[in-house]
C-alpha cells in the first residue's frame, strides 16, 4: 500500500513540476550584430533592451512581438526603411 501511495505521489509531483517553459520559447529572429544593421522588409530580428530602430523613410512601420517574463522581443519592418542599432 505504501509503495502504491509513493508511486501515485511521485507521479503527481512529476506532472505538477512539468517544464512550464516548454510552450513559451524565447523571441525568434536573427540576432543582429553590434553596430548598425539595415533592416530587410518582413525579416524578423530579435531585439534586446537598449537596441534601437531608427527610421530612414518618412513612413516607416514595424511589427513588434514581445514575450512576457523577460523572454525578449522581436521586430519586423513592414513598411518604409530603417536601421537596427545594437550597442
Amino acid at each position, binding site marked *: 500500500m505504501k509503495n502504491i*501511495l509513493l508511486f501515485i505521489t511521485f507521479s503527481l509531483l512529476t506532472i505538477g513540476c512539468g517544464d512550464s517553459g516548454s*510552450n513559451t520559447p524565447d523571441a525568434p529572429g536573427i540576432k543582429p550584430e553590434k553596430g548598425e544593421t539595415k533592416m530587410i522588409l518582413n525579416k524578423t530580428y530579435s531585439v534586446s533592451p537598449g537596441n534601437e530602430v531608427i527610421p530612414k523613410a518618412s513612413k516607416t*512601420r514595424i511589427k513588434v512581438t514581445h514575450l*512576457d517574463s523577460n523572454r525578449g522581443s522581436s521586430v519586423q519592418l513592414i513598411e518604409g526603411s*530603417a536601421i537596427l542599432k545594437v550597442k
Partner: protein
Amino acid sequence: MKQHFKFYALIVLFFIASTLLGASDSNTTIKIMPLGDSITYDNSIADLTDPRPISRRTAYRSHLWYMLRDAGYGADFVGSRSAGWAVTPPFDPDNEGHPGWHSDDIAEKTYDYMTHSTPDIVLLHIGTNDKQTSIAGIRTILREIDTYEEVSGQSVRVIVALIIDKQEKNNIIRIFNKKLQVLLTSRLLDGDNIAIVDMYKGAGLITADYADNLHPNTNGYKKMAKVWFNALITPYNLKLNMYPATVVDKSYIESVTVNAKTNSVQYITAVPPSGIKF
C-alpha cells in the same frame, strides 16, 4: 507505519482536492450580455416580409452558448429581450439585440441595460445600421459603461467587435472598423478592461456565409460564435496590454493583440522620427 500512511494519504488527497477545485473554476456562471442589433437578435431581411417565429431566432448566441457549455463554462446570457427559446438543444435566449438600431440608439439605453442586467461581460457588435464611418456612438456606449462601473463599483469586461462586412464588400464598414480599431487600441493601452475581436477579417465570413447582404446565415453565425468564444476564454492580461505604450508613444501604435496562450503581445506601430528604443 500508520503515521506514514496518513502522511501519504494526505498528500494524495491534497492533489485530488486541488485538481477538483481547479476544475470547479470553469463551472462559475458568468453573466454575459450579447449587445447589438439584428446580427445579435437574429432578424434577416426575409423576416421583414415573412417573419420566422421569435422563439427560433438565435444568431450567434446559441452556437456560442453551446461552445461555452461544452467547455464547462456556465454562461448566463442576460438582457431585456428574449429570442430563440424554442430551439433544441435549449440555450439561454436572453439578449440585448435590437434589430435596425444604430450605435447612437444603443448608446442612449446602455446605462439602463447595465443597471437592469448587471453583466460581468458585454459582447458588443454594433454599427452595421449606422451607414456612416463615425464611431461616436460606440465611444458613447463605452463611456456609459464606464459611468455604470464608477457608480455601481462593478467591473465590466467589454469585448468589442470590429463588425462583419456586408456580403457585398463595403467601404464604409472598412473605414468604420479602422477608426474603431484606433479607439479600442487607445483604450487598451490605457489599461481599460476591454478586448477587441476581429469579426471583419478574423471570423472568416465568405459570401456563402450570408443569408442576405447584411446578415449571416447559420454557418456565418457559427463562425462569429467561435471568435466570441476564443475571446471569452482568453484571460485578461493588463500588463501585456499596456506594454507597447512603455516602448513608444501610444499615438503611433496602430493595433495591439495579446496572445494569452503564448503570454505575448504583438503590436504594429509607426516609427517616430526619433526612433524606438527597446
